[in-house]
C-alpha cells in the first residue's frame, strides 16, 4: 500500500472528526451541451495531499470535468470551491494564479524554445507580472524554481535542449515540470502515461509519487495499474455522474463498476 | 437628381465584371478548399491564358478556338506546376506553398514579357456591335461575356454536383483521409482541380481580353480582387465566392458613379475589412448552429 493509500484509509476510518477541510470541492457540477449532459450533478471532495484517481469509460465526462476545474469550460450549473473560495466560471489564467495547474493529453510545450525557457515562462507567470524593464536573468528566484521543477521530473542537465528534440516521454515529463513551475496547490494530470511503453509508464508513476508529497494531485487515467497503484481514493464517472467512490480495493470489488467497464 | 441611367449602366457593368471575377474566384476557392493552397499565381495564369488566346486568335482567326486553346494550354501548365512545385510541398508549413506560388507568379510574368514583349496585345470581340442604352452605345460583347461566364460557372456547378468526378472532388474537399480510404486517388484529384482552376482562369483572361487589352500585369488586379472576394465569400465556399464576386463588383461599379474608377477599388477593401470584423468566416456563409 502506498503512503497515500494508507493516509486515505486512516482518514476514512477516522469518522471525519480530524479530517482537514477539502482543498477542492465541487457541488452539483453540471455541463449541458444542448440536450446532452456531459456532467450531471458531480459532487466531489478532495483533501489536501491526496492523490485522487478519476476513471470511467469513454465519454464519462473526465476531460469535461478537468476543463471546468481549469476554467476552460464554464459549467451550466453547480460550483467549484478551491480552498473554500468559489472559483466557478473564472478565466483560465485567473485559475492558474489560484494555483491549479494541468498537464494535457496532447503535449502543450513550446517546441521552438529550450527546455529551460519552457519552464521559466511558467515559473515567472506566478509573480513579477508587471516588471517589464528588468532583464530576465535578474530573476534568480524564477530560475531557481524552474530548475527545481526540471530536477523534480528528471530533466536536470537538459536545460538548453530544444524542446522539440526531446523524446516523447521526456516531453510529457516537461509538461509536468511546466505545471509544477507554477507552484500549484492542485495538479491535474490528464492521462500522463498515454502512449507510453511499460518502462516509461513505471518511470512516470515514480515521478508522480515523488512530486505528490507536497501537492494534491488529480489524475485521470485509463491504465488501471497506474491508477490503482497511485491513488488513495478513486472516483468513477459514468455518463457524467459519479458512479462510485472509494479506495482502489473497494472500487475493484464493486460489481457495478466492473459491469460498466466490461459492457461500455 | 438620381442618375438612373448611370445606375442601370453601372449595374450592367458590375454584373459583367462580377461574372468574370466569379470565374477567377471559383477556381481560387476550389483550389484552396481542396488542398489548402493559396495560389498567388492565379492571376498570372489568367494573364498567360489571355496571351495564348491572343496568339491563337492571330493564328486561326477564331475567338472560340482561342478560348479553347488557352484553357487547354494553361490547364496543362497547371498540371505541370502542381506536380513539380506544389505536390512535394503538401503537409508542410502553409507559408512554403504561399512562397512557392508567389515565385511561380514572378516567373510567369517574366516569361510572358520575354515571350511576347512589352506591347499590349489585342483580342478583338467575337460579337461585334452595340445597342443603344440611354445615351451610351453599350457593346453586345459585354452582355455575351456575362452569359458565357454564366455558362462556365453553371457547367462547373453541374459537374461538381452530378458527375462522378464531381463527387470525388467534393468528398476529397471534405475529408481527404476518408476519401483515400474509399479508394479515391487523392493526389490525382488535387492535380485535376488545379488544372480546372487554371483552365478557368485562362478562360476568364480570354473573355476579359477585349475589355482592356492583354498585358503582363493584367493578372495582378484580378489576383487581388479574387482574394478579397474569396475571403468575403468564405474560403472554400464556392457559392459564396460567386455571390461575393458579383456583390463586390456591383458595389465598385456604383462607387464609380461618384468617384473615379481608380478610387472605386477602395470599396472592395472596405468590404473586406468589414467582413473580417463582423463575419470573418464569410458574408455568405450560413452561421454554424
Amino acid at each position, binding site marked *: 500500500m502506498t503512503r497515500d493509500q494508507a493516509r486515505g484509509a486512516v482518514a476514512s476510518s477516522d469518522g471525519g472528526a480530524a479530517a482537514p477541510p477539502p482543498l477542492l470541492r465541487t457541488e452539483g457540477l453540471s455541463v449541458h451541451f444542448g440536450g446532452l449532459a456531459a456532467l450531471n450533478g458531480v459532487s466531489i471532495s478532495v483533501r489536501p495531499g491526496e492523490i485522487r484517481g478519476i476513471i470511467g469509460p469513454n465519454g464519462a465526462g473526465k476531460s469535461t470535468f478537468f476543463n471546468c476545474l481549469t476554467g476552460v469550460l464554464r459549467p451550466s450549473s453547480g460550483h467549484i470551491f478551491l480552498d473554500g473560495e468559489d472559483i466557478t466560471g473564472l478565466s483560465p489564467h485567473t485559475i492558474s494564479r489560484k494555483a491549479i495547474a494541468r498537464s494535457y493529453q496532447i503535449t502543450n510545450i513550446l517546441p521552438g524554445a529550450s527546455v529551460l525557457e519552457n519552464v521559466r515562462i511558467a515559473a515567472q507567470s506566478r509573480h513579477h507580472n508587471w516588471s517589464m524593464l528588468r532583464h530576465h536573468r535578474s530573476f534568480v528566484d524564477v530560475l531557481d524554481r524552474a530548475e527545481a521543477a526540471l530536477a523534480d521530473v528528471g530533466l536536470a542537465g537538459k536545460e538548453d535542449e530544444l524542446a522539440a528534440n526531446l523524446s516523447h516521454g521526456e516531453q510529457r515529463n516537461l509538461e509536468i515540470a511546466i505545471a509544477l513551475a507554477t507552484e500549484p496547490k492542485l495538479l491535474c494530470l490528464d492521462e500522463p502515461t498515454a502512449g507510453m511503453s511499460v518502462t516509461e509508464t513505471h518511470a512516470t508513476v515514480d515521478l508522480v509519487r515523488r512530486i505528490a508529497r507536497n501537492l494534491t494531485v488529480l489524475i485521470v487515467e485509463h491504465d488501471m495499474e497506474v491508477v490503482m497503484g497511485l491513488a488513495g481514493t478513486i472516483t468513477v464517472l459514468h455518463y457524467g455522474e459519479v458512479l462510485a467512490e472509494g479506495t482502489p480495493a473497494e472500487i475493484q470489488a464493486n460489481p457495478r*463498476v466492473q459491469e460498466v467497464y466490461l459492457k461500455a | 437628381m438620381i442618375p438612373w441611367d448611370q445606375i442601370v449602366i453601372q449595374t450592367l457593368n458590375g454584373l459583367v465584371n462580377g461574372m468574370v471575377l466569379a470565374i477567377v474566384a471559383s477556381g481560387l476557392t476550389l483550389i484552396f478548399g481542396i488542398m489548402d493552397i493559396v495560389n498567388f499565381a492565379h492571376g498570372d495564369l489568367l494573364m498567360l491564358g489571355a496571351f495564348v488566346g491572343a496568339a491563337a486568335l492571330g493564328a486561326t482567326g477564331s475567338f472560340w478556338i482561342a478560348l479553347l486553346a488557352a484553357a487547354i494550354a494553361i490547364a496543362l501548365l497547371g498540371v505541370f506546376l502542381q506536380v513539380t512545385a506544389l505536390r512535394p510541398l503538401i503537409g508542410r508549413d502553409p507559408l512554403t506553398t504561399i512562397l512557392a506560388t508567389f515565385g511561380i507568379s514572378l516567373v510567369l510574368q517574366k516569361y510572358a514579357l520575354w515571350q511576347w514583349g512589352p506591347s499590349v496585345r489585342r483580342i478583338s470581340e467575337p460579337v461585334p456591335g452595340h445597342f443603344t442604352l440611354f445615351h451610351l452605345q453599350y457593346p453586345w460583347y459585354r452582355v455575351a461575356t456575362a452569359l458565357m461566364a454564366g455558362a462556365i460557372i453553371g457547367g462547373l456547378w453541374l459537374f461538381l454536383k452530378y458527375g462522378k468526378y464531381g*463527387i470525388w472532388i467534393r468528398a476529397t474537399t471534405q475529408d481527404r483521409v476518408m476519401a483515400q*480510404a474509399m*479508394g479515391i486517388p*487523392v493526389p490525382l484529384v488535387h492535380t485535376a482541380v488545379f488544372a480546372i482552376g487554371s483552365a478557368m482562369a485562362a478562360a476568364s483572361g480570354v473573355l476579359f481580353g477585349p475589355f482592356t487589352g492583354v498585358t503582363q500585369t493584367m493578372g495582378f488586379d484580378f489576383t487581388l480582387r479574387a482574394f478579397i472576394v474569396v475571403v468575403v465569400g468564405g474560403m472554400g465556399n464556392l457559392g459564396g465566392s460567386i455571390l461575393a464576386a458579383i456583390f463586390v463588383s456591383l458595389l465598385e461599379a456604383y462607387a464609380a458613379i461618384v468617384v473615379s474608377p481608380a478610387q472605386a477599388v477602395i470599396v472592395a477593401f472596405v468590404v473586406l475589412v468589414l467582413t473580417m470584423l463582423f463575419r470573418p468566416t464569410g458574408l455568405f456563409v450560413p452561421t454554424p448552429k
Partner: protein
Amino acid sequence: MLVLDDVHANYDKAHVLHGVSIEVRAGEVVGLLGRNGVGKTTTLKAIMGLVRRTGGRVTFEGRDLAGVSPHALARLGIAWVPEERRIFRLLTVLENLRTGVERPGTMPARREELLDKAYRYFPILRERRHQAGGTLSGGEQQMLAIARAMMLEPKIILLDEPTEGLMPRMVGQIREIVHALHRDGVAILLVEQNVPLTLEAADRVYIMEKGVVRHQAPATDLRADQAVIHQYLGV
C-alpha cells in the same frame, strides 16, 4: 490473409505501438479488445498507412503493404470504418455510397446490385438517400459508414468501435450486421470495448495493453472463462 508482424507505429511523436502481431484469416471475425488508449485504433490506422510505421511489417494476401498509398488499399480489398464514422457530411447518402460503388471495373449493373444490397441491409438509408449525410442521426451515420465500406466489395473490413455512442438497442443491430457480413464471407477486424458483443460475434480475440498484444484466444475459450477479460479490461 492480413498479417501484422511486430508492428511499431508513431502517432505524432508518441511511440504508441510497441510491436503488435495480429493475424486475420479469410472470412474470419477477429476481435481486438483493450481499454482506452492501448493502441487499438492506432493499429487499424497503421494497417491503413495513416500513421507512420516505424517497425515491423503489414502484409495482405502475401503482399507487403509498405509504400502502398492509402487509396490503393480499397482496390486490394481493405475497407475501413473509422471510429468517428467520418461520413461525408455535405454529400447525400446516395453520394456517400457512390464514392465506394463507382470504382473502375465495376459494371453499372453490378453497381445497382450493390446499392440495392445496401438498401436491403439498411432500409433507412433508402428512405434518406437524398438527404445530406450530416443530417442523419448517430446510428444512421454508423449504418451509412458500414454500407459505404460494403460498396467496395472488400475482402476485409476494419471496423472501429461501431457501437460507441450508440443507444443500447442499436447494439443488437450492429451484431446482426456483423453476422450478415460474416455470412457473406467478408473478414472483419473488430475493434471494440463492448465485451459481450465481441465475444459473441468473433471467432478469435486479441487483447491489447500499452501498445502490445497481451493475450489471444478463441472466443469460445474467453466466453467460458472471463478472468483474463477482467484482468485486462476491468478495473
